Each structure stands twice: as C-alpha cells, then as structure tokens.
C-alpha cells in the first residue's frame, strides 16, 4: 500500500509495533469517501422518494466502483478514447466534444426565478391580502352594478392591497436575489488553464474545454483539471485534502498499485492540488462525471432542513392567519345573521378584519433586519448565503467542528524537541526555551535542514515566517520554518552541498542524504530522518551532551519514554541521526551513488527527536470557551487520529475532564465497564461508531458532555450530525473539505471555510468564514441571538397596533357606530408609520450579555409565543385601542355626537340620501359634512395609534431592562420616531392627503388627548419589567415575559 505521508504518526503505548497502521486507517477512511457518501445520500434519497431516480444513483455509483481505466493497459485506453499519446486528440473533434459537454460542474439546480417569485407572491400573508384585495374589488363591482355612482373606496382599497402584496413580494424577492448574487460571484471559480496535446501540438486551453481522451500535462501549483490517469510522472505529488480533508502530499506515478480507484497511484482527481513535480496524463472523466462532481451533485440533492427562523415565522404566520380567518368568519356571519347586514357591508367588515389582522409590513421588516445583520456579519468576514441562516447560529445549541483547518491552523509546527535526554517545549513566545548552543541541537538543526527537500518559495520579510510559502510536505516545511529562525537554511545548505540522497520510501520509512561539510575540509556526513523506531534501529550510538555515547538500554528506555510522551500528546514524532564519515574512507571528491548506496546507513549516531503538531488557532480555545459559556456544546468530528484529536480537543477546551479511556486506564478496567455517568468526556473512534446504531450514538450524545469523534468517514459525520439533531439540538457544522459537505448540508447551518474550503463545501454551506477563523462563529452566534431578540421586539411592536386596527371593525359591527378607522388608514400604519420604527429595532443593542445565556430551546422559546401575544394583544393593544376610541369619541362629542348617541347610528350615518342627520344638539348634518366628521374622527384615531406607538416603540426596546437602563442610544430609533411623527403630520395636514387617505386636518387639541394613554403604556410596562427584574422566578416573570 502506498501512503502519501512520509512518516508514520506516533500513537504512544496503545500501539503495537506497526505505527504505520494508523496512517493506513486514515487513508482507508479517506478513500472510502466515494462509496460511503454516495451510498448514504443514495440511501437518503431512496428513503425519500423510493423512486427510479434513487436506483439511478445507485447505478451511477456502481459505475464509479467498476471503473477500470486505471487497470487496463494505456494502449487499450488510447484506443478506447480514440486518442494518441503522440498527437493527442484532433482538435476539431475535441472542440466539438467540449461544446457538448464542457468540463465543469453543473451548478446546482436552482428553483427557477419565476417560481421563487410566485412563492413570495402567494406565500405567507400574501394569500390573505390577495383574498382581501379580491374581495374589495368584488365589493366594488357589486356596488357599481347597483349604482354607477358608487364611491370607489373599495376599488381603491382592492387595488392598493394587491399593489401592497406585489411590492412587498418584489422587495423580499429582490433582497433574496441580492444575497444569492453575492454567493454566485463568490463561487465563481477562477478559470483554470491547462496544457493539452492536440493535433500533435501542445497548447494552453481553458480547463473547461478539456474532454475525455485529452493528453495533458499537470505541473505543481496547478489544480488537477479532471480525473486523470498518469502516463509519465516525475516526482509528481498531489494533495487530496479537498477530497479527504487531510493535507498530505501523496505521490503519483504511472503504476497501478491498487484495484480500488481511490487508492491506486496512477489516478489523480479533479480539483486536487498538484504540489510537487509534473506529469503527463490522459483525461478519463470530466465535469459532473468526475469523482468530485458526483459528490457535489449528490450533496446538492440532500434535502435542506427548514431554518429555525423560517419555522418560527411559519408558526407565526399560521397563528395570525388562523386568527384573522377565525375573527373574519365570526364577524362576517355575525354581521350577516344577527345584524342583518347586507352581504356587501359584511364583506367590507371581512376585508377590514383581514387587513387589520395581517401585519403587512412585518415580513419585509424581518427581511430587512436579517439583511442588516448579514451586512454586519460580512464586515466580520462572515458571508451569509442564505439570509435566514443569520439567525440560525443564534439558535445553535451544538457545534460539530472539523479539526483540521477549522480548529487548527492546518500548518504543521515544531512543538517539542528531544535531545540530551530531555524534552524541550518550543514556545515561540519564549526566547531560549531550549538550549541552542548544545551540539546535539546544532546537529538536529543540520539534519533537519540538510535532509530535506523542502524549500522556501518566497522569502517575504514583511510576512511572518510561518506564512511563507514552501514546497514540500507539511512536516519538512514545518522543520525548515523552525530551522530558518535559528539560521537561514540557505546558508547552511550552501555550506553543506548535498552529494547523495536516498528519498523516503515506505519500506525503509526513512530518508538519507550525504552532504559535504565545507568548513570541515570537505568531510562527508550522512544525515537520516524518519520514523523514530526505524531510525533508532540503525543507530549504535547516541549524542548526549556533546558526547557520542553507546546506545545502551538505559538510553533506549529514555527514548521510549520520550517517544511515548510526545506521541501521547498527539504529535507527529520524527527521529534524526547522523554519521560523520571517515575522511580516509571517503576522501573529498568521493563519488557517492544514490541508486546503489555506497555509504553506511547503519551504525549511526542518534541525535534526537522533533515532535510536530498542527497547532490550534490562537483564538480557538477562548472561542470554544465562549461557546460553552453560551450554553453551546462543541463536539469535534474529525478524520484524524484519536490521540491527535484528543490532544487538540484538550488544548482548545473541547475536552476538559478525564475521558472514558483515561478513566479506564486509571482504574485498570476496560472502557466498556465505565458507566456513562462516571466520565464526562469521551473519544469515539470511527471504528467504534461503525458498530453502533443510531440510538447508541444518540445515547453517547445524551450521556457525555465533552465528545470527540475521531477517524470518522464523511458518512459517519453525516450520521453524527443527524443523531445530534435527532436528540433535539440545532446543529452547526464547520468544515472545509469535500468530505465535510454532506454534513454541512445536513446541518441546520453549515459553515464553510473561505480560504481553505473547497468549492463543494462552500456551495453546501449556508455561511462562509472568509478568514477561516472559528472565533467568527462566536460573533455569529452573538449576532444571531441579538437579531432573534430584536425580531421578537419588532414583532411585538408591530403586532400591538393590530388591536387598535382591529377593534374599530369589531365595534362597528357590534355596536353599529360609524366606522372609527378606515382600511386605508390601517395600511397607512402598517406600511407607513410602523415600518421604519419596526426596522429600527433591529439596531437595538443587547440588553444583557447574550453570550452568557443558554441558547433558546426551539421547542419552547418560540419567536411568537402566547406571552408575547398576551402582552401585545390583550394588554398594550387594548390600551392602545382605548386611546384610539377615546380620541374618536372626543372628536365626535366635540362636534355634537355624544357617545350614547353614536350607538346604532351607523346605518343612517352611511346612508347617502339622509342629508339631515340629527346630532345630540339638534343640529342636522348632511351626508357630506358628517363624512368629513367621520374622516376627522378616523384621523384622530389614527393619530392616537401613532402616539401610543411612540410609547410602544420605547417599551419594545427592552424585554426586561428599564428604558432608563437601556437608554436611547439607538439613533435609528430616534430617527424612526421623528419619521413616524413627520409622516402622521403629513398625512393629517399636507394638501392632497385628504383625497388620497381620507384624512382631515385636526385641531391641535386632539394631539393631547391620547398622550395620557401613551404615558400609561410606559408606566404599565416599566412596572411589569420592574417586577420581572425583582422577582426573577415570580408569577409575572413566568406569565408576562416574552
């Protein structure tokens, strides 16, 4: 078997000899991506549809597995694809083929724009408004058919309602389309160029135009442009991290080494990176047929869950729609039967009740709020693909995080050294944390520098050393970066030119170089590095404190102890040795032969160990802590080795307590004997996971607080995420590889990495961290929670005015008084004065440290719960309605219609032929004049609503704190208050408004009458909040806190 990793990974005591086994597992897991992902998705789909398409997918997969292109001789392949290794494809044919089937991934099938638009046009409250609008037009038609001089109010109303639906739908569609567009631009891949042989000539074409059978060359630095089979290669290496998530350089050569297409060396896959060497190859699969293409396609078919906020809004819409229809039906029948109203009149009530119940502007408000937050997050380098995902992070109760590249830097770093029989920790922050002057260290430096193929590709002094680009594999890069700090490696290499080299191979597990030491008069030195125990086996001495001592059992014990210790930390340990060649045997100018080594590779002097680790990102430990104190559990799900995973988990605070295996080791019992309650932490390997059923996985999630899943396959990631969801969590998944994509898709919110992430993972995710920084997630959680709170406040604010809008119609029907508020005015409030204030609440700052709060329970903490409805509808709303009616009664009374007189007056009032309706003072009113009075009273009602909405806006700023604590720092809210007031002044006094909205200018005195009610609202709510704060467990808190 072939591995990409040069060195095995140390695993400490639990491993028996074969240290390579672990790495093999990793590879095996990685290569089984195709089978498992596809099988899982296919299974999902089968469950979903039970149809033919599922079978088709399975068939697709079979085909993938039955691939034989890597097995057959190249000549057969050439003839199969009608190509020629000397001349390539004829370009005419190739171009035609490329036209028919370009080499790119078909973008995921999007819902057509028209359907999306229609959904917004008829979804949500729109349907109710359509009903209202159509009813209004019907009412006008009926009216018109009786009397051609009928007032056109109903017609206008119908048109306005339909216009409102259209405009709000266009608005939300536009918002969504805009965030979609952002993503599309983001996903647009850079066009790749590729060297291709056609008509016997090499040329460069867009990778899009590659077709099956093309002969191409791939050089390091390129992305492999298709699934290819290697024809010739020179030290060609690819990095399959985009497939497997493990960043390792894997060598590729023309030999077929395995029947499994994923494991054989002669295939390279689309979208993987060539990191070293060059090759010529034949294109086997392109575009969607490639391995990546298949995963991408199948991932796209995984059904996306409904976002929590959408769920909440749907719940809310159902609630309000139900209420609207219920009230509408009751009052319609009441009007028809008890009041013996005409059908037309009852219809007008019905429309009014519907319009009053529907918060027309609310969905737009929510969209705007989410957009604002998305914009805010974009500033923090978080791109949100799906607007609603903004809130999802806030509801998240569990984060399943990939390790490599998310929690860690995905950059190997030297963490420990072992020489002179002791372990030295490398801490970049501490100077002289190890003895640089010791000969042993100098030797380690020389070996690491001189036995290495890695070089710096750039030496940009302005950047920190750790960010310099290097060629070579991760371990060697880490070593040269470490060495560069001590002394520039180019100097050392210049002084010690390499004369011979045995590269690493999997049987030896070591690499040897011979260098000439120019300072020492051309003496040659053999340098070796490799798997520690293999290197040690070739040593007879050990360098201890400047002396070469014979390697006896005490030293070997020392070595074993250090090796175990470092391995136990999850670090990758490398052994180093050297041999100063005798100048008499190997005089200057001696010809070394790398092919048939003519220099000793045994009896070396052991110099020491380097221990490497992919260290956690600096901000991660504190971010994980922040998540935990916010009640969010962080679970690590990684393809990496359990020990490494555990070590990283511990260093980033994911594991804080003794794990089950540690407990078992301490007590000397087997892991299965450990009771679930005994330990809080557990590391579950993919191997164990394979044997569990879903319920057992769920039990692990229920029983343990700190969980690490290691050595998991993509399919298992999916299973884990599903299990965590089924236990009742809202799950965020972070990841960067193609192997993470199914899990990203399954998650309630998938978070992909912007820099390290693959395109497939990005397209599967809902959110992208542009700076790959886990701490951005914490920011996201905060923003998400804040926006949830603020949307709640917006809704509370908007819903409150429903009661003063609704009651006029109810009272109109029940008591037969002249209509206190017109339908058009309801729209003025919902879409005019209430709009900006509701949006301004999105800017409201948090009331308390929202990151100290536990995440909301999606089963109980609803966006709109009965407490919110109680407070808005039954308390503040009623107060507001009182203010409105008070204003209405005052205007009526001041003009002669005393309250007692109004009851039962409606029929005469609305009769166009009664031109002398008597008021309480014997005055007689013409139709025209009393309609003007009605307009005036309605305007007063409208004004009262606006005035009490001032108070409502202020009380909605907080849910618990006093306004005195919260202050009025939200400048948008202040502008909103001014806006609202200006609008009502315009509506009342501006010329033309009386025609458009049937308003009537009011005497200044009517600006005062509703103010007591506004004060009352402020007082009442402050009192409620005071009691809530004072008695955190009290009845008021439990019943009147939303």
């Amino acid at each position, binding site marked *: 078997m072939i591995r990409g990793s040069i060195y095995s990974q140390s695993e400490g005591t639990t491993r028996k000899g074969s240290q390579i086994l672990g790495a093999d597992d990793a590879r095996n897991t990685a290569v089984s991506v195709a089978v498992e992902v596809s099988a899982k998705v296919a299974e999902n789909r089968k469950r979903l549809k039970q149809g033919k398409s599922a079978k088709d997918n399975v068939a697709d997969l079979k085909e993938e597995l039955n691939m034989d292109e890597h097995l057959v001789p190249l000549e057969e392949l050439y003839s199969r694809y009608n190509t020629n290794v000397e001349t390539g494809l004829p370009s005419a044919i190739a171009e035609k083929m490329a036209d028919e089937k370009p080499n790119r991934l078909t973008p995921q099938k999007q819902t057509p724009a028209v359907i999306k638009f229609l959904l917004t046009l008829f979804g949500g409250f729109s349907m109710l408004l359509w009903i209202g609008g159509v009813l209004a037009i019907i009412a006008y038609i009926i009216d018109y058919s*009786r*009397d051609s001089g009928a007032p056109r109010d109903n017609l206008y109303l119908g048109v306005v309602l339909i216009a409102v639906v259209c405009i709000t739908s266009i608005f939300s569609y536009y918002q969504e389309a805009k965030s979609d567009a952002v993503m599309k631009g983001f996903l647009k891949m850079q066009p790749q160029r590729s060297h291709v042989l056609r008509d016997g000539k090499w040329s460069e074409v867009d990778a899009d135009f590659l077709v099956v059978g093309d002969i191409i060359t791939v050089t390091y630095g390129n992305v492999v442009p298709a699934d290819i089979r290697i024809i010739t290669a020179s030290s060609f290496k690819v990095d399959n991290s985009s497939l497997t998530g493990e960043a390792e350089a894997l060598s590729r050569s023309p030999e077929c080494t395995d029947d499994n297409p994923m494991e054989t060396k002669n295939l390279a896959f689309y979208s993987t990176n060539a990191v070293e060497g060059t090759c010529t190859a034949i294109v086997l699969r392109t575009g969607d047929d490639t391995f990546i293409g298949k995963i991408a396609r199948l991932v796209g078919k995984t059904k996306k869950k409904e976002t929590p906020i959408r769920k909440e809004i749907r719940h809310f819409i159902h609630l309000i729609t139900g209420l609207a229809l219920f009230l509408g039906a009751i009052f319609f029948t009441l009007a028809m039967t008890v009041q013996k109203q005409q059908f037309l009149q009852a219809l007008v009530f019905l429309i009014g009740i519907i319009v009053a119940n529907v918060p027309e502007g609310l969905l737009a408000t929510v969209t705007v709020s989410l957009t604002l937050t998305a914009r805010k997050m974009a500033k923090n380098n978080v791109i949100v693909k799906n607007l609603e995902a903004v809130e999802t992070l806030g509801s998240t*109760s*569990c984060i399943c995080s990939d390790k490599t590249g998310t929690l860690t830097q995905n950059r190997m770093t030297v963490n420990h050294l072992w020489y002179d029989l002791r372990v030295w920790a490398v801490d970049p922050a501490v100077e002289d944390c190890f003895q640089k002057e010791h000969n042993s260290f100098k030797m380690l430096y020389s070996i690491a520098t001189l036995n290495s193929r890695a070089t710096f590709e750039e030496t940009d002094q302005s950047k920190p050393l750790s960010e310099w680009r290097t060629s070579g594999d991760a371990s060697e890069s880490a070593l040269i970066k470490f060495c560069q700090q001590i002394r520039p490696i180019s100097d050392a290499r210049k002084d010690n030119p390499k004369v011979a080299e045995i590269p690493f191979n999997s049987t030896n597990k070591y690499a040897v170089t011979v260098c000439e030491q120019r300072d020492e008069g051309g003496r040659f030195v053999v340098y070796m590095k490799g798997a520690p125990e293999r290197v040690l086996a070739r040593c007879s001495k050990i360098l201890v404190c400047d002396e070469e001592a014979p390697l006896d059992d005490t030293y070997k014990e020392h070595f074993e102890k250090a090796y175990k210790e470092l391995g136990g930390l999850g670090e990758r340990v490398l052994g180093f040795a050297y041999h100063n060649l005798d100048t008499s045997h190997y005089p200057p100018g001696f010809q070394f032969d790398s092919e048939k080594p003519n220099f000793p590779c045994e009896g070396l002097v052991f110099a020491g160990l380097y221990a490497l680790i992919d260290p956690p990102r600096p901000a991660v430990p504190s971010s994980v802590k922040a998540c935990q104190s916010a*009640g969010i*559990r962080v679970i690590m799900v990684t393809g990496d080795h359990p020990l490494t995973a555990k070590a990283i988990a511990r260093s980033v605070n994911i594991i*804080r*307590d003794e794990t089950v295996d540690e407990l078992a080791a301490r007590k000397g019992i087997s892991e299965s004997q450990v009771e679930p309650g005994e330990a*809080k932490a557990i590391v579950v390997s993919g191997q164990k996971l394979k044997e569990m059923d879903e319920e057992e996985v769920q039990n692990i999630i*229920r029983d343990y*607080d*700190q969980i690490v899943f290691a050595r998991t396959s993509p399919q298992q990631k999916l299973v884990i995420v599903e299990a965590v969801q*089924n*236990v*009742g*969590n809202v799950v965020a998944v972070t990841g960067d590889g193609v192997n993470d994509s199914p899990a990203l898709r399954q998650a309630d919110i998938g978070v992909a990495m912007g820099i390290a992430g693959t395109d497939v993972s990005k397209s599967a995710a809902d959110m992208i961290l542009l700076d790959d920084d886990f701490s951005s997630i914490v920011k996201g959680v905060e923003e998400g929670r804040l926006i949830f709170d603020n949307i709640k406040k917006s809704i509370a604010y908007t819903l409150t005015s429903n009661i003063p809008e609704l009651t006029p119609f109810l009272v109109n029907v029940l008591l037969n008084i002249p209509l206190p508020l017109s339908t058009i005015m309801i729209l003025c409030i919902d879409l005019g004065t209430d709009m900006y204030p509701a949006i301004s609440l999105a800017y409201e700052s948090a009331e308390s440290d929202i990151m100290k709060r*536990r*995440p909301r*329970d*999606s*089963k109980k903490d609803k966006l709109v719960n009965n407490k919110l409805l109680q407070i808005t509808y*039954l*308390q503040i709303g*009623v*107060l507001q309605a*009182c203010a409105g009616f*008070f204003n209405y*009664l005052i205007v009526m*009374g*001041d*003009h*002669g219609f*005393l*309250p007692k007189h109004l009851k039962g007056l409606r029929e005469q009032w609305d*009769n*166009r*032929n009664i*031109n*002398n309706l008597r*008021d309480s*003072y*014997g*005055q*007689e*009113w*013409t139709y*025209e*004049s*009393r309609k*003007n*009075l009605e307009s*005036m009273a309605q305007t007063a009602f409208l004004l009262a609503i606006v005035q009490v909405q001032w108070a409502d806006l202020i009380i909605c700023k907080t849910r618990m704190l006093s306004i005195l604590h919260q202050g009025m720092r939200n400048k948008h809210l202040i502008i909103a208050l001014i806006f609202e007031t200006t609008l009502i002044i315009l509506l009342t006094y501006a010329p033309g408004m009386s025609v458009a909205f049937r308003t*009537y200018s009011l005497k200044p005195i009517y600006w005062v*009458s509703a103010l007591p009610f506004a004060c*009352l609202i402020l007082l009442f709510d402050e009192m409620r909040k005071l009691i809530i704060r004072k008695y*955190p*467990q009290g*009845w008021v808190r*439990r*019943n009147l806190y939303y």
Partner: protein
Amino acid sequence: MPSSNNLRKQPSRSLSKQDELLSIQTQYFVKLEDLKLTRKQKCLRFVYDTDTKKVMGRTPTSWSKIGLFYLIFYGMLAALVAICMWVFLQTLDPRIPKWQQDASVIGTNPGLGFRPMPKDNEESTLIWLQGTNKANYLNWFDNIMEFLDKYYTPGKIEKGNAYLKTCSYTEWPTETEVCEVDVKDWGDCSRDQFFNYYRSSPCIFLKLNKIYGWTPDYYDDPYDLPPDMPKHLQDHIRNITRLEERRNIWVSCEGENPADVEYLGPVQFYPPVQGFPGYYFPFRNSEGYLSPLVAVRFLRPVSGIVINIECRAWAKNIHYNRAERMGSVHFELLID
C-alpha cells in the same frame, strides 16, 4: 409549568460548570416519551393532561390566577377610561356644541332637505305618485305625517315648558322663546287636503338643516340679487315693499333641465312669502324649536314622465354647488 420548576431549582454549590452545561444541554433533548405519542394523543394531552391536571396548558389554579390578573387589569383600565370620559364630558355643555359653524366640521352651509322621503329604497330620491291608487297616496300621506306630526302637536315631544310664540317680522323671539311653525292653514298643502296627493298636484315640504348659531345673511336688497336667481323669485322679492318682510331665506324650485321646467309647470309656495322667515334663526337648541318649513305645490306636473327637480335656498351665506348638493336639494317626481 415544568420550565418554571426547572428555573426554580437552584443549582447546588457542588455542581461544576460542566455539570451545569450538561444539565442545560439536556433541556434541548427530545424527551423519549414524547416521541411515542401520536399527534392526536398530543392534542388530547394539551386539552387535558391527566398527569399534571392541566387544561389547555394550564392548571386550574394557573387559569384562575391569569383570569384574576386580567380581571384586575381590565377593571382598572375600564375605570381609567371612565375617568377620562367623565373629564371629557365635563368639558361639554349639554345644550351648546363645543365647536360651532366654521370651527366645526358642520360648517356654515346648511343643507336643504325634503319630505316625503321615499322609503322603499333608501338610495332613491324618486317620488312616484300613483294618484288613483289610494294605498299609494295614503302611503305618502303617512310618510309626511310622520314628519309633520310634531308640527301639528308641538307639545307632544317637548314637555311643554318652552314658550311657543307666534312670531312675525316685527316680533322676533327672545332668548327663551321659540317661534311657532304654523302648518295648519296651508290650504292645499294641509293635512285635511291629504297634501293634494290624490289630485296629482303634490306638496313637497322643504326644510333647512339646523346649524347651531347660524344666522342667514339675507338677500333683502331688491337691487342686489344674484344673477342666477330665477326671474320670478327676483320679481317676488321686489314686490315685497317692507324691508323687514324681505328678511327671508328665499326658496326656489325648478326643473333641472329646460324640458323638466316645461313638464313641471307652475309652482305654488306655502307660506306665500316663499321662504323661511328670518325670525326662526339662529337655531339655539332651545326646547320646542321646530325648523321652519316651506311647502311646494306642483300644480300641474306632466304625468308619465320622471321630472328632475332642484330646489334651492337663497341667502348670501348659503353657497351653491349642484354636484356636491350644497345649498340645494334634488329629487324626481313621477306621476302616473
């Protein structure tokens, strides 16, 4: 409520941060027993939960507590509204409207009304007379009588302490007096004559809307009459020699179109002064006040044709606009 119980349970001191986290986490877990219930069972459990004795999510105690809260809340709110209303009503005078004339929406342009009002169809202003049909004209007669009842028996409505005065141009009423409207001796347009409906020359009664405090500005200068005033009315005014007798709100009734004028024929007015005498104004909401009336008798309207009639009231401060029916009234007459 279970959540409240959880809240009340203070975490013990020994509980570590981790335990806390785990116990928080468990809140999110789906309860295993919940998974077993069907939708219907869940609904039934919501309506009545036998374990917790909850009806619709609340125990009876909880219901009574929330009920009590709302009782108090609404009780106090009602009291508050009542206080507000009481304060407001204190600002009103029982006899004098707060806002009058131009300060009020009612304005200073009284509308003109007519009787009888067609009752079968509220939207209609057609007086359809079938002179030979006794039921029909009795119907109209009753319609008018309903309106004129209080004129024939003034004390019937007012409880009689108002001092009714027979006013004349020289004897205007004082603050406490109201002028009598004498409709008894209006000849053909009297009750005894069935208002002439049976003779197909019906009387239509006109009245001006009452507006508190409104005083007419008379056309009392025979040489300063508006040009659109009908010629015969101008002549009629000029024929009145005494200035005080010209202090009337004049009334004219004509066909709306030239054809209507022709079909309508001659018109006779009661009282013969052809208007509302000025001593009835202003209206001060005094008890026993009755609006002055003008009866219009169409002597020979052509039968079988709908005649559009417009009657106008004339004073300098009555503005006229046919489209908005200001200062005028419109009705149709059809005689079979």
